[in-house]
């Protein structure tokens, strides 16, 4: 099949705002317009997750693509047992972690400030420079440490959930998170 169904309509020109559930049903039937609307409703949070866990704006953009392509591919398996956003968030975490594993170990690196300024809009009213400093400190963490720290302290997953997602023991996860916090503190004190 060469063309996406209903590709002539702009998503914004739909006559009615559909619920996420309706959009999911349409997307499951192959309607890419509906999927685009789901994308637009959820991309900001997925992007934030990808940016923090990768620590790199370009990589985050690629990861967002991978997440939504994977979501499209697997959409047929979404049965509505959970919220779509829940399913998508978990899928995003899996895609990011899988990407980490496939690319192997990387060292800490500095991250360009413009990437982090994407969080600045949310933070503009309070301590404008501070959050960027903190984001930079997190971005400079070693990869594994950064990933588990984001999952625990930014995204709010519990230790045992992170252990299941990352496939390591609970003790290892705790140790990694403790180390990540310590390194973040050190980076801020430097």
């Amino acid at each position, binding site marked *: *099949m060469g*063309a*996406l169904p209903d590709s002539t309509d702009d998503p914004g020109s739909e006559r009615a705002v559909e619920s996420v559930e309706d959009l999911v049903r349409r*997307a499951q039937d*192959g309607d*890419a317009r509906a*999927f*685009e609307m789901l*994308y637009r409703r959820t*991309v*900001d*949070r*997925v*992007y*934030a997750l990808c*940016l923090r866990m990768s620590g790199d*704006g370009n990589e985050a*953009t690629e990861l967002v*693509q991978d997440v*939504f*392509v994977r979501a*499209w*591919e*697997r959409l*047929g*398996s*979404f049965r509505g*047992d*959970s*919220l779509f*956003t*829940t*399913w998508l*968030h*978990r899928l995003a975490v899996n895609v990011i972690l899988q990407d980490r594993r496939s690319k192997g170990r990387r060292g800490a690196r500095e991250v360009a400030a413009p990437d982090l300024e*994407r*969080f600045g*809009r*949310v933070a503009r009213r*309070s*301590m404008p*420079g*501070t*959050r960027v*400093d*903190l984001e930079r400190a997190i971005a400079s963490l070693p990869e594994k440490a950064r990933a588990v*720290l984001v999952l625990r*302290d*930014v*995204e*709010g*997953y519990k230790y045992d959930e992170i252990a*299941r*997602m990352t496939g390591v023991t609970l003790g290892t996860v705790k140790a990694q998170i*403790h180390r990540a*916090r*310590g390194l973040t*503190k050190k980076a*801020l*004190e430097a």
Partner: protein
Amino acid sequence: MTNHVPPEKIHDLLDGLATAAQREEIEVHVASCGACRDELARMTDVVMAIRDLPSVGQAPEGIWDSIEARISGTQPAVTEDAKVLALPVKEPVRRRFHFTVPQLAAAALLVSLLSSASVWMALSGTGTSGASADASGGGQTASVWVASLETDVGYAQAVSDLEMIVEQGRNRLAPETVAALDQAMQNIDAALAEVRRALEADPSSGILGRMLANHQMSRLRLLRQAASAVQAVS
């Protein structure tokens, strides 16, 4: 020193995994150990700041075009559904201290954090010299903690800066807003005075120390809100 609080216990405390007995054991230890008190205060600040980060960003434009190109001509497939964990909704950041002595130490830093002027100065040391000096002195009573909080350089500076901003700009606020601020400040100051007097009689009371820290936090938050309001109408 052979029996400092192990780092994992500090993290358990911050994660809410410490039992009441463990919590109290830490409190007792840090009451007489400035190093552990300082470490706990700094780690508390860092973790609270991370937890307060927003979980949304602003995705760049144009990503969809690439996605559309990649999924063009394909259909969603039915595959084995992965087990889905509950998506956590971020808990709102708690504002009040729930445990005693360590958080009194943390308070000096936290109130500094509430000041836009001295945010990471606090973590780099310049904002906490007063607290650190007192902490390393090994004080054992709540009054020492109180003194360390109230004589802390970062805290005093934050209060002074904010009070000046509010004082200079209060005439730009609506009279009702000014009245509400003044009344609230009077309430807090009256409560602070009560707690201070009770602390003079019972310097080692944990509950009084915690109340004092909470009222100080409320006062700083109020000043910061007032300063933001003033700046917004400037």
